[in-house]
């Protein structure tokens, strides 16, 4: 495919100019109260949604910004924010 990503600064560009930064998981939790399982879940585990997900990208070869987009992993196309998202069961 030719993935394109819309950078908030530079506009729609070739996806290879960007670096994928993972599923959106929320801010870093404070270490206090975490156990290995919850920490591992934050750091390593993914929902691996087959569908639309919110995710981070950086315009590595361009302006360098980090930003989020919605993308459909079944089509590799950017998508609108879905009304319902998978939530952790």
């Amino acid at each position, binding site marked *: 495919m030719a993935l394109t990503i819309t950078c908030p600064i530079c506009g729609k560009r*070739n996806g290879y100019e960007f670096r994928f930064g993972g599923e959106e998981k929320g801010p*870093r939790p404070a*270490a206090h109260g975490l156990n*290995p399982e919850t920490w591992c879940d934050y750091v390593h585990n993914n929902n691996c949604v087959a569908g639309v997900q919110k995710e981070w990208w*950086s315009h590595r070869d361009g302006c360098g910004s980090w930003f989020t987009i919605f993308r459909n992993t079944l089509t590799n196309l950017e998508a609108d924010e879905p009304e319902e998202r998978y939530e952790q069961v």
Partner: protein
Amino acid sequence: MNRFNQLLTLRIDPTRKKAFTYLGKTYQGAEGDTVASALYANGVRIFARSLKYHRPRGLYSLDGECSNTCMEVDGIPNVRAENTLLKNGMAVKAQNVKGTPEKDLLGFMDKMSWAMPAGFYYNTMHKPAMIWPIALKQIRKVAGLGKLAPDFAMTGKYDEIFPTADVCVIGGGPAGMSAALSAAENGLRVIILEARPWLGGFFEYRVAEYQNEVPLYQRARDLAKQVADTPDIRTFTHTAMVGAYSNNLITAFQIGGANDSFDQRYIEIRAQSVVVATGCIERPLLFDNNEKPGVMQIGCAHRLARTYGLLAGEKAVFSIGHDLGLEAAIDLFDLGLKISCVADIREDGQDPGLVEIMQRKKIPLLRGWVATEAHGKKTLNKVTLSTLQGTRDKEFSCDLLVASAGMTPVTGPLTLAQAKLAFDNHTGFFLPTQLPVKMHAAGRMSGLNDALAIEASGRCAGLQAAADCGASVDANLDEARTSLESRPGPVKGSKMVTAPVKGDKTFICFDEDTTVKNIKQAIEKGFDVTELIKRFTSAGTGPGQGGIPGHNLPLFVAQYNADPDVSAKPTTIRPPLVPTFIATYAGANHDMCKRTPLHALQKKAGGVFRRVGVWNRARYFSQDFTCRDEIDNVRNNVGLFDASTLGKFKIWGPDALKALQRVYVSDMSKISDGKIKYSAMCNEDACLIDDGVVIKRGKNDYYFTTSTARAGATVEWIRYHTRYDGWNYSMVNLTDAFGVINLAGPDARKVLAEITDADVSNDAFPYTGYREFKIKNTIPVRAMRLGFVGELSYELHAPSSYMPALWEILEDAGSEFNIRNFGLEAQNVLRMERCHVIIGAESEQRTTLHDVGLGFLWDRTKTDAKTVGAFALKQTEKQAGRLKLVGFKTEDSDARAPRDGSIIVDTKIRGYVCIARHSHTLDEVIGLALVDESLAKIGTKLEIYEDECGDKRLYAVVAPTPFYDPEAKRLKM
């Protein structure tokens, strides 16, 4: 062979001869000839032998759907002779023959076909096991088509371009040109791609009337002229579209003409909207021996005459299912072809005008008839025709059978862009159920055959594409739609799947010698999906991919499964749509690498360079790869090392410190003025990913270094790990702004003192100090007292543009102290003697900060900083069973050093040697290893297993580190 030389449709110039060789003999063709048309003109009928059965194969289509005319040209295998332009001096050879195409010693294979049912190999030759390797050798030998020498060197120039367009039109026929013109009228940038060397497509070779007595070919030329006269249209002819990707990225390759600077070039187009006007090819007619030389498709016979001036035979039979067959019969008859009979699959529905002309010219027409068998030993000499039910038959002797079941749309560009196909009952085509976003189809693909309808559909598509780009086109679009609707719509397609034959010698895929019978065998084995049948029978996996079987395979599967709705689907079409040279895809292939400001000087000094990541770096400065002299000189005198590749960054602003606290494991609030702070970064698994020094140059203003490998990712890393915080800080990557020289050795201070007025005495500028001063009152340097190599040393950071000057100044000042360069390998040994870790050499993915003994850098009190890796650092701090970094020595100092990468074992693998050398400085064998914690105690004996060691082992003992200057006196002197 006589050629027409006066036809207005010709694309050859018979007066301009081109000489070439074939089978060692010299022949002549004309300018504009393809290799195949030139061979045909010289009487060649058998171009190659088939892959499996070595059946003779001839000219079948002219657009390269099959490998029938794949030949070796100038040492390059699998060249499609039918669409490769002839050049003077070409050397042409046949492929896959033992002997000649006419007399192939492996021709007997055809008689063995009964013994090779579908999936033959899976069920044979593995019993007993010992025969398989022997059989395999033979299979490999007979498989494959062309030959390529391992030392073959592709000549020619291969280029690439990456243009942007508003609208990209694929196909330069009447619909494509109409679309391009309509889009361009709206002021848009249009690109048009055409596979043939000229525009014109479906009209270009035909003399039938367009309208008002203008022939189609003339109309094609008029449109082409309009296109050429439109500055916003950029035309690429002789350009095969090969890939379509989402968001309308289109790839193609162009074959260069006489005035082009390239032989072939890769074209990658980014378009807002795309029009696909690729038209149709013909659906092969399935009957016995349907690929015998002498059998060819309508367009092939017609274009051979009209484009290349060649009558394909003397006496012909036609077995067709489309009006184009009737038109071709009439035109070729007029050009002198004898036609015994035209069998039309269709019982009715022919264009009455064409039927009337045929009657007038006394060309016999049999409706509801079809060819069932082509006869002849190697080439065609007779045809059997029968009724569709096979109830009656007739035979005709002939040397040409024009055979075609109908049309098949070229939907590849659309399916590559993820369009899904479904069977259309009217046309008999597999057509997209929905067009991809901002993609439009035009022309014959939908089954149109009427010239004006084709153009109108092109205009519609061009305007829709323009609308995608924001143009307002409503009025024009309505007009174009009206004109399209006023013309005849899609033509009803012939329903016939196969002629009434058993199918033992009815080839559904020419390239893989797959017969209709093979398909039946596969279905009976339980392979009920076309994709699986394809895999099991190989149909459609040859050089022509789905070109021949693409349409017929799902039709046949549906028929065999008595599935009237044809739910079977064509197999997936994959890029490249046209096989494309690796050289072409590679294009210019510029080698982009980084050089330090000292590159030229080091090269002159005899540096042996290595690619290290994106950089070129000097690894050695002599052919002695132990680097003994380089090392000695640093230990005893003074050396110069180019460390310019180190990452260098400025970070400042109110929240700069917070950002540093987030990524560095140490407490970065404790940086003293005029001092460097050494620290490290970890990932979330506490794995050491970077180390370097941080300097505070002012309030909220820091300068820091990273390892070479991390330089590119550092800004991204820090921003990533602070992305939720909204902190106000700025960063600039200064990696390339400063060069770095490490001036190291006991005489380093003496050298430095000579070139600066600054006080560089040990008191004024002690170990771990940081100073800024000028060299020779001109070059501003940032100087750090570090000791990576274990000697008194200064790391001098200076603006890159001054680096060559600084280097020469240092060499000049150091000459009395025997200053000399040292490279990466010398540094590697020097730092190893001091046990300074290199990330990636003494660490890997499993290695934490604790494991390499740098756990002391971690500040466990700054929990509020949410430091990256802190959680894992805490968790792994006392964890048992990890690999730990240790130093070791051999017991016997005369022993050979174990090779880097040797493993440490007992009954299991317990670690490995990261680096080991015979240290000339210490005169003993020392090294660093990652070993299981249980072996990490000083004094533990290590059993070292080297590759190829057999029963022999080397032994070493875990030793205290650092090996060299354990009290660090030399660093601080």
